[in-house]
């Protein structure tokens, strides 16, 4: 509860500080309540059986001035056990003609192998912290419609399945006296990077300026503007990765084998969508009040991997590699967003 008070005070402070400079530019403030869920249910392969995320509620506070100089958003996540943590922090500013956006968020979780007769390498520490960070630089599209575009860097940290390959003759039998060879290992905080093109469609701020977006249907009735919309943020580009867990000592101590990791890179994308209903009241040109309700979701997916073939060269070697799709991520949840622009 303390966090909510802090957020509200921050909102008021930012509004007061920004008002003189932004009264001519469209000062935009919003407060969002949402159910925040990191889910492993759509993981490819067996990872969904081994990864368990905490669920939680999030509050998002946003201060933004799309045509001016400053934007801020923060989210406090309340876990089921009642504890609070800073889930995301989003800031944006305008440098000359450029729009800068910074976002960071995350969720905690646990690893568990429910099948006692399934060989699997798990780290000693079964807890992890997933994170999604993004830095975007771009500008507003000259045609308006709530569109921004540019370049972005996305960093997703989350569990990933590392597939293990052994010398063929022993692959099934293993070595007598050693534990059964595991086909997979779980890296709890595998880091994925995407560097590429970014664009963002925001219908609520567009509605509040009396405009629609690509995927919206605004209906104007007096001072009211309402309608459904699909908001969309996307980054697509080069993908490369960085494992957090060194499997070398684990595989050496379990099987006496030497470990080699094969890097993974290629193309990936992240999609963030909001299926929303907007209701905006425009008192005058200088004041708009908006309400947005909807479902928010985000997916991060590897689309294409630069192929790199490897062959086991010696009988005491094991090669690890992440499979395409074994590090996908999905988040979703309903939300309500209140906004005012003046």
């Amino acid at each position: 509860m303390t966090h909510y008070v802090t957020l509200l005070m921050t909102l008021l402070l930012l509004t007061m500080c920004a008002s003189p400079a932004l009264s001519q530019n469209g000062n935009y403030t919003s407060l969002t309540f949402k159910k925040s869920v990191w889910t492993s249910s759509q993981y490819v392969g067996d990872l969904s059986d081994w990864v368990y995320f905490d669920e939680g509620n999030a509050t998002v506070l946003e201060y933004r001035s799309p045509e001016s100089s400053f934007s801020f958003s923060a989210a406090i996540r309340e876990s089921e056990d009642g504890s609070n943590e800073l889930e995301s922090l989003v800031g944006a500013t305008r440098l000359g003609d450029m729009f800068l956006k910074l976002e960071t968020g995350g969720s905690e979780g646990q690893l568990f192998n429910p099948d006692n007769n399934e060989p699997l390498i798990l780290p000693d520490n079964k807890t992890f912290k997933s994170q999604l960070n993004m830095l975007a630089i771009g500008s507003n599209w000259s045609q308006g419609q709530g569109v921004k575009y540019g370049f972005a860097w996305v960093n997703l940290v989350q569990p990933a399945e590392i597939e293990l390959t052994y010398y063929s003759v022993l692959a099934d039998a293993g070595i007598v006296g050693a534990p059964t060879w595991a086909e997979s290992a779980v890296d709890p905080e595998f880091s994925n990077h995407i560097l590429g093109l970014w664009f963002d469609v925001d219908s609520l701020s567009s509605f509040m300026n009396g405009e629609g977006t690509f995927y919206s249907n605004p209906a104007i009735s007096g001072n009211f503007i309402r309608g459904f919309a699909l908001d969309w943020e996307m980054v697509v580009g080069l993908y490369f990765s960085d494992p957090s867990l060194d499997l070398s000592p684990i595989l050496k101590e379990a099987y006496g084998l030497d470990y080699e990791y094969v890097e993974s890179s290629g193309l990936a994308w992240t999609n963030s969508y909001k299926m929303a209903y907007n209701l905006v009241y425009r008192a005058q040109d200088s004041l708009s009040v908006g309400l947005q309700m909807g479902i928010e979701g985000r997916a991060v997916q590897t689309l294409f991997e630069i192929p790199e073939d490897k062959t086991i060269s010696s009988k005491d070697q094991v090669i690890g590699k992440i499979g395409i799709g074994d590090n996908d991520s999905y988040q979703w949840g309903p939300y309500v967003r209140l906004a005012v622009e003046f």
Partner: protein
Amino acid sequence: MKYVSARFYFVLFISFLLVACEGEINTNENASGSAPIPVQNDLTDNDDFFHAYRLSSIPQSLSDTLSTTDTVDYFYLELPLRSYRSYSFELKSLTGDADLELINAYLNKESWSENAGTEDELIDYWRNYTDLDNNMVFLKVINRSGTDVMYTLEVN
């Protein structure tokens, strides 16, 4: 028409990307060298699974010491085939706090005993026919005190 065309090329581009492609890791029948052989007869070097000390018979009792640098000892045991019964693994005569874990051949923890202080640690393990696909188990003795700990391990 201009928008339709743009959307068409966008969908085409995404479809191209979704044609997944990845490298392959090949096993090799002609791999060089030799497969490593576990070392299971050295009580001074039994700090991991591959060097777990082999308990060759049941019942058996042996004594060893953990220190501040040698904090874990591993033991390896092949349970008799077609013998469905209860086994007990016990740490006795402790001079400090130590815990005992039973780990199966798939590196998953089957059971554990974590009593405080010098209290004995005991794991009773019922092995039935469903466990027959692999009869190996590992015992892990862990030093939980900040000093040397002597112990006696009994398997019955």
